């Protein structure tokens, strides 16, 4: 029989176990962090991949696969170049991100990469890294704070992507034109640029047109999330019965929009254009749920970030601001995409396929 206190001890030690299993494997990694040169002289021989220290990467949010891909590709590229990449999740909180940067400085990392959670408020944290002499690189999202020195940026040309999305919308709606909804995420400057590009293309299209205008009737907050995209679209469908197109600033909110259309039985009336080209989004394009995506190249972002760090540390020149143009991705691309071949997808329902056909050949 157990005494009362021994029962408590068991409960506590079980919790302790939970705690330990939560962090043990990574701790082993961390004890290897203090890598680097030997004693006073380091002019000795060279190893195959010489360890060059740590790169700290503070990701915007690892809940979005896009940033997870950046993190993974960066870790991979880091390894081949002799870096250990320390990935932290800021969960969209710039305060959290500042903590990460403070930690990186205290740890004395070789370089810092981040997706700024707030393009202005991240300034003071970057300045601290500047003062500590640690190079800072941004990725995907840019920093707009004054007097914060960023040593390099790699991102998507969001404006160009927005224009491609606009073109795709024009192609899909054809001469008939119609009403269009935008699912926005205003907090992110990248999304503001996407919508700007999109809007401008539509404005040019409408310019000398008597009929068949494509008009943006509503710009709603989609939060970049499936559930919010779903809610906003449902509401918009109530308000605008004749909606013909939706531009969602990323794939999750585009998928939310599709669910709303399906509930309202309007999948054949409304065309969705997404953004990103994540696996889910690509699959949806293959299934005909989304008409087209301007796709980004997160893998490339991670790789180029590491390459830029190597060049910086080697004292070589590199592109300080590099914007990767997006490419439009449609069903035809999806059918050839090796990424989608690997995972079997259910055959699209016949109705859904035919509706895409009707859109492609409008009157």
């Amino acid at each position, binding site marked *: 029989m157990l005494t*009362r206190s021994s029962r408590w001890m068991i409960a*506590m030690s079980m*919790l302790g176990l939970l705690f330990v299993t939560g*962090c043990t494997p990574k701790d082993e990694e961390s004890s290897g962090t203090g890598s680097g040169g030997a004693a006073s002289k380091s002019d000795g021989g*060279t190893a195959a991949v010489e360890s060059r220290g740590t790169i700290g990467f503070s990701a915007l949010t690892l809940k979005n696969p896009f940033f997870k891909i950046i993190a993974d590709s960066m870790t991979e590229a880091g390894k081949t170049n002799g870096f250990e990449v320390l990935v932290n999740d800021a969960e969209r909180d*710039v305060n959290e991100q500042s903590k990460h940067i403070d*930690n990186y400085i205290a740890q004395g990392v070789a370089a810092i990469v981040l997706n700024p959670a707030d393009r*202005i408020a991240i300034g003071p944290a970057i300045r601290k890294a500047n003062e500590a002499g640690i190079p800072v690189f941004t990725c995907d999202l840019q920093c707009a704070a004054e007097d914060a020195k960023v040593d390099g940026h790699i991102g998507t040309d969001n404006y160009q992507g927005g224009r491609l999305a606009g073109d795709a919308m024009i192609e899909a709606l054809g001469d008939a034109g119609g009403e269009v909804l935008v699912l926005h995420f*205003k907090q992110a400057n990248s999304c503001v640029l996407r919508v700007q590009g999109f809007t401008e293309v539509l404005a040019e299209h409408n310019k000398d047109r008597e009929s068949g205008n494509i008009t943006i009737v509503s710009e709603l907050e989609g939060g970049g999330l499936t559930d919010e995209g779903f809610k906003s679209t449902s509401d918009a469908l109530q308000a605008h019965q004749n909606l013909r197109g939706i531009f969602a600033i990323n794939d999750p909110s585009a998928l939310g929009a599709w669910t709303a259309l399906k509930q309202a039985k309007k999948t054949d009336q409304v065309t969705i254009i997404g953004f990103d080209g994540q696996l889910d989004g690509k699959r949806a394009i293959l299934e005909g749920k989304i008409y087209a995506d301007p796709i980004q190249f997160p893998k490339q972002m991670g790789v180029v970030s590491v390459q830029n760090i190597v060049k910086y540390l080697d004292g070589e020149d590199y592109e300080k601001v590099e914007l990767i143009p997006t490419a439009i991705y449609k069903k035809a691309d999806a059918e050839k995409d090796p990424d989608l071949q690997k995972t079997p997808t259910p055959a699209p329902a016949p109705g859904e396929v035919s509706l895409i056909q009707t859109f492609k050949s409008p009157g």
Partner: protein
Amino acid sequence: MKRFIADNGSIIVLLALCAYYSVVTLGEQHPNTPAAGQEVAAAILKDSSEQVTVVVITRDTVQDRAYSEAVRAAIETGGGTVLAVVNGAPTDARLALEQVGGAFSRVDAIATNHSASGWGPLKPQKLKTTADKFPGISGIKVFKPQSYTWPSFLTRENLVNVINQNAVIAIIAIGMTLVIITAGIDLSVGSLLALCGVTTAVAIQQMAGGADAGTIGLLGACLIGTGVCTLCGIFNGVMVTWFRVPAFVVTLAMMMVARGLALIVAVQYQSALLGGGTEGTPEAVRIEAAAFGWLGNGATFGIPNPILLMLALYVLAHITMTKTSVGRYIYAVGGNPEAARLSGVPVFGVLILVYAICGAMAGLAGIVDASRFEGGRPNAGEMYELQVIAAVVVGGTSLAGGEGRIFGTLVGAMIIAVIQNGLNMAGVASYEQKCVFGGLILAAVLLDRFKRK
């Protein structure tokens, strides 16, 4: 013994955590002080018999400059020649090496520190290829300070970081502790933090004169910001007392309303900046007054100001709770409101005061946040309420009310901070961190139960 463990459980846990992280973060440390510079200089002088020629290469930081200056001085007093001192980026190092390699026939040594020794141009292979073109550096050797083994967790910089990063949470936790001691809860603190930040930012930009704002103007703006939050707290208190709405519900409502207000103010402000034509985006309201950053990013006697503010508030709160009538009343109201009322305690007044203090603390935290990020962020403080409640609970305050210690909360906040810091340093993904924190909170409550048995 048992009693001692039960009473000081959280402190023991904190110390144990620190010890644990000290062991797992044990690793090489690389000194970068002027003293280390002198040692390196001595090593260089000892290594070469003739008059030695040296290039000093470090990064461009205050510390590195002091280090390279020490090296230079020591080499020169030792009879050597310093050909160049480079304080800059890897590119500067490369250019400097090419330059000395071309200009001088013999360069003996590079004196550098750990950070710069990792740069490409200083790598043996790279040096060899450079030497092919610039033969002056063909015999060059790289010297850097001797490293030593020490836990990277246990450095002054890291410990100061841990506290500084969590000062905001710890400040809000003061107010939350009081509320929880009265058996209440305040979910609105995170939103109030944002509301205060935004309000203060707008007040500085619009009323205090923006970039030209003086000290009085800044203080006035802070007062407006905290005042708004205090009023929100009073509202919470009035609802809880006079209208008998459960605190959970009132503050949940306030959490949403305050967040909404913060976003509205920020968006309106951005829109006004753009001329009012288009709708603004919910970005931070930028504070241009440079002096405002003092609170969040400055330091006094080498200690960051948020830490000093936090400590001052904790001492004040501790005195209030243990040495004044108000403190006794708060405990009494939490322990048994009816008995307190029948003993002449103004229960409603005490409750309203407690919620007002909680609002004011969230406001102060909002000012620290705004100062730290040089702008009022409408999205600041999301989910802080839960972090703060966790800190209070881990610190040993009972959610049933009537019990709890102010410094217990500080220890609780630090336990969470240390765990998070350690996990971040070890690169544990946020997914696992969440599990650890959940377990931690459960463990804290179990400890509390254990104590009561």
